[in-house]
Structures are given as C-alpha cells and as structure tokens.
C-alpha cells in the first residue's frame, strides 16, 4: 500500500510544481503588464478579486499538472499491469511494445529480452527434468527387474549376482549425477579454469599413456602427430578431460586393429587438436545434435557399452570453458575427426 501512496505523492508533487510554474508565469505576466502600464495600479477592493483569480488559476494549473502527470505515467502503469500478468507462466510471453523509441518503449524492450532469457531457462529446466527422469528410469527398471527376479530364487549364487548387478547400475547412476552436476553447475568454482600457454604434445602424451593399454586390448594403436614445441593457450585439466573422452570414444567405436590419431597443428588464429579414427563414421544428420546432453547415435549400442550419454556434452563444455570450440567432420564408412580449435599463444 505504501507504494500506491508514493505513486500518488509523486503525482501531487508534479501537480504542485506545475501550479507553481503556472503562478510564476502569471505573476511574471502581471508584473510585465503592470510595468508596461497596461493595468491600473491595484487598489484595495480589487486585491480580493485578484487573490480569488490567483487561487483559481493556481487550482487550474494544479489540475492540469495532475492530469499531465497521470497521462505521462499511464504507459508505465500499463507496463506494470502487463508484467504482472506475465509473471504467471501461462499468460502471454511478451509485452506488446507501444512505441519502441520512447523511454517506456525502451524499458518494455529490455523487459522482453529479460523475459525471453527467463523463458529459455524454464524450457531448459523442463527438458533437464525430462531427460534426467528418462535416464534414471532405465537403470531403475533394470535394478527392479533384477531384484524381483532374484528374490524368487533361493539360490545364493543368483542373489549374489543380482546384488552385484544392482550395484553396477547404482554406480552408473552416481556417475550420471556427477557428470550432470558438472554440466549444470559449471560456472561455480567447482572446476576453476586456469588457461595458460602450454605444450599441446604433453597433454596428448598423457592421454595416450593413460589409454594406451585400453587401446592395446583392441589391437589399436594411438598415434601422436604433434610438433614438440607446438604451444596453445589452454587449461590442461579441461583439455585432458576433453581428449580423454574423445579418445575413449574412438577406441570404443572403431573396430579392432584400426589406428587412432591424436594430432595437432597450427592454423590461422588457432591451434587445431584432432582425435581421428577410421571407425564406422557418423551420418550427417547427427552432426548438429551429437554434442547435446543425452543424445545418442545408437541408443542400444551406447548403453550396452556402458555409455551415459554425456561424454560429448562434457567435451563441448570443457573445450568452450578453456576458450576453444569443437567440431565434427565425419563420413559414414570412412571415420570421424573431432577437431578442437584452441586459442593460440599470442605475445
């Protein structure tokens, strides 16, 4: 209620100012008129009438001022009403901008931009909730089935196996939560970003050392092709995270015996780091969506391989956080190249 009173007070003030201004004009006019000798010198009986006229004129100016103030503030009032209706999620989504060039119009445009971003977050939130419930339902269904079936049996070996299988699913759900939290809470200091000039080859070597044995199991070779002194501007932990995910994917999806290349080279205003395989390749219709959270090219296969569906989303997140971009070049039957563009070292 206080706000309403204050709005009223502002109008009264404006009206008073306008009345004062009006009176000053009147007095000034009168003074000029008398100075020019147009009016008679004011004598006693006339002064009362003059006072009455003065009060009347003051009142008129006050009313005029009040009206003007109300008129001037009307669009603001309207905007407030519109915004109030918008605050429920079911109403219209934008304010109709009356005149984009005046102050109120500018305010409305600004509010619309704000609303749009807000709407975006709502949509994102809905999608996240849908995605997560879907992703959790799959392992939960498996656990329930395994548990229920195992309980029918009196065989301890089967029970033992069922518990193991359920623990595996639980583990996967935990990993899902860890990765999802990373993606949604990425801006906090959970993962501090410290990009600095560094040797790209060191990171490639580290990834290849960690994953070498895994590749060997599939008779695959990790081949590094990168100049000793090639430097780029990056956060080592984030780059490593991205390359670990990409290289594991390459190992997972390309057939035994095929090489996997980890290579880097300088380009115009960027350093290119690539993970290339000679696997089955990815059809063009997936290229846009493949970096999206939970998008899977082959749902059944990815799940069977133990995939959570967040690997490439994390790659994109990590690369962008260290100031780079990621793109995919792939042709079915020929293989895939995941290419990172990192900022170069400038002096």
């Amino acid at each position, binding site marked *: 209620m206080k706000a309403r009173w204050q709005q009223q007070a502002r109008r009264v003030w404006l009206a008073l100012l306008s009345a004062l201004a009006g009176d000053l004009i009147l007095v000034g006019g009168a003074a000029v008129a008398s100075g020019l000798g147009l009016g008679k010198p004011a004598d006693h009986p006339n002064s009362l009438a003059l006072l009455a006229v003065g009060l009347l004129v003051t009142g008129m100016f006050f009313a005029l001022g009040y009206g003007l103030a109300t008129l001037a503030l009307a669009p603001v009032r309207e905007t407030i009403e519109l915004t109030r209706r918008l605050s429920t999620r079911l109403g219209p989504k934008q304010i109709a901008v009356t005149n984009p060039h005046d102050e109120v119009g500018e305010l409305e445009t600004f509010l619309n931009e704000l609303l749009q971003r807000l709407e975006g977050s709502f949509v994102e939130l809905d999608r996240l909730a849908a995605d997560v419930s879907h992703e959790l339902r799959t392992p939960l269904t498996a656990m329930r089935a395994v548990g229920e079936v195992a309980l029918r049996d009196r065989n301890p070996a089967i029970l033992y196996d069922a518990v193991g*299988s359920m623990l*595996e699913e*639980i583990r996967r759900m935990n990993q899902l939560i860890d990765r999802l939290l990373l993606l949604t809470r990425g801006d906090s*200091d959970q993962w501090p970003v410290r990009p600095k000039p560094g040797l790209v080859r060191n990171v490639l070597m580290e990834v290849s050392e960690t994953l070498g044995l*895994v590749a060997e199991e599939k008779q695959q070779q990790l081949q590094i092709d990168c100049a000793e002194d090639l430097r780029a501007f990056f956060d080592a932990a984030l780059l490593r995270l991205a390359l670990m*995910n990409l290289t594991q994917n390459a190992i997972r999806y390309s057939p035994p015996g095929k090489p996997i290349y980890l290579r880097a080279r300088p380009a115009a205003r960027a350093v290119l780091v690539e993970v290339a395989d000679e696997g089955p390749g990815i059809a063009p219709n997936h290229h846009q969506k493949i970096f999206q959270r939970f998008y899977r090219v082959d749902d059944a296969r990815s799940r069977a391989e*133990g995939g959570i569906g967040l690997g490439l989303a994390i790659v994109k997140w990590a690369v962008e956080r260290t100031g780079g971009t990621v793109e995919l070049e792939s042709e079915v039957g020929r293989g895939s190249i995941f290419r990172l563009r990192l900022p170069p070292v400038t002096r």
Partner: protein
Amino acid sequence: MVCSREDSFVGTMRLLIVEDDEKTSGALKAGLESEGFSAAVASTGETGFFLLNSEKFDLLLLDWMLPGHDGIEILKTLRARGTNTPVLLLTARDAVEDRVLGLESGADDYLVKPFAFAELVARIRTLLRRVTPVEPLRKTVADLVVDLETRRVWRSGKVIELTPREFDLLAYLLRHPGQVVTREMLAKEVWAETNRVTPLDNVIDVHVAHLRRKLDDGQAVKLVHTMRGVGFVLREEARA
C-alpha cells in the same frame, strides 16, 4: 569378508555413527561390526552429543545434514571443548567451499555421499592408524612377496615383471589386504585423478586384468579378485 586385523588395533575400536537416515545408519552399523568395529548409532545431533559426553569413542562418523543441530554445529562445539576424537564427515554436499568449511570446522576427513562402503572402511582405518604410520617395506600375501622399496615382486619364488602403474596398483591393494578397493579409490590414489568425471573405469579394469594375468595365471591360489559392482580385493582364494 575376510578381515585381517592390523597390529595397531588393541582391542575393539568403538565408533559412533550420527546419521538421521535409519536405513543408512543400520547398514553402516552392521557393516562396520562385520569389519570388527563396535558401533553405536544416534539419529539426531542431540542424542549424538549426549552419547559423546557419556561414553568414550575412538571415532565419530558424522552426517552433515541432521535435524535440529546440524553436523557442523556439533563438530564446532566438540572442537571448542577440546575433544580431539577423529571425525569423519559424511555429506551429500561436494562443492569446494563445503569441503573447506567441513575441514575448517574440525573434521579430519570428508566423504561425499553416496560413498562406497569399502572406501568408508579404508578411511576409518587410515584415521585410526594415524598414530602408528610405520609401514613394513616388504609385504607378503600367500606366496607373493612385494618389496615396496626396490619395487620388485616375486610369486612362488619367481620374479614377476610389472609396469610402474601395475606396481602402484598392487602396492595399493596390498595396503588394504582382504579389503575391497573401489575404482574411485584407485582412480584417486593410483592414477592421481582429482575429479570424479574423468572416465577411467575401463583403464582401471584393463590394468587390473593385466596384473591378474601376471600374478595369478597358472597358480592354484588366486590373489586378485573382482567383486562385481564394488571393486577389487587382494586375498588368498582358490578359484574354480
């Protein structure tokens, strides 16, 4: 589970679990008792505080989020009084600032929920062992001999060649003989991985498989075992 009692444990260690979720505290109590500890449970901060004042405990397992007084409040009061019982804080909060707050309030260690029971036991043992950190340089399990100083390994008197990573893996398993070691623990301790999102599962699995091949192939008594869904354990066991 086979339980190898450490020399430093004189008598039974008594633990207090302050945790409001009954299912969790019940499972923890049963699990810890099967590991040879004795455990009491308090479901609120008040009860926990009362028990701490009336009995002696060797270690406190404290849940951060508790109805009434939360874990941090209890911890601060405890430390302000000069009680130096080791405290292992259990919590679902894993932001960096939460960890810092937990440790600054006087916790000795910090474990994020949901944790693996094996890791909890390992941390508890570490906290209780802090007093006697002396570790023998040569360890033996069945006919396996490992020299931690020269990094040499023998099985049935024959030298076994291990890669540096395989040796580190074996050394870590040896430090927890008869206890299950999770992939998370291995990632953290053997691969020095600081974050939980780096995909290392298959890396660990492959290394364990190699280690097992080198240690156990052709042997009647197997030493490296996989506990499905939990992790790995080093112990004597004839495998079919």
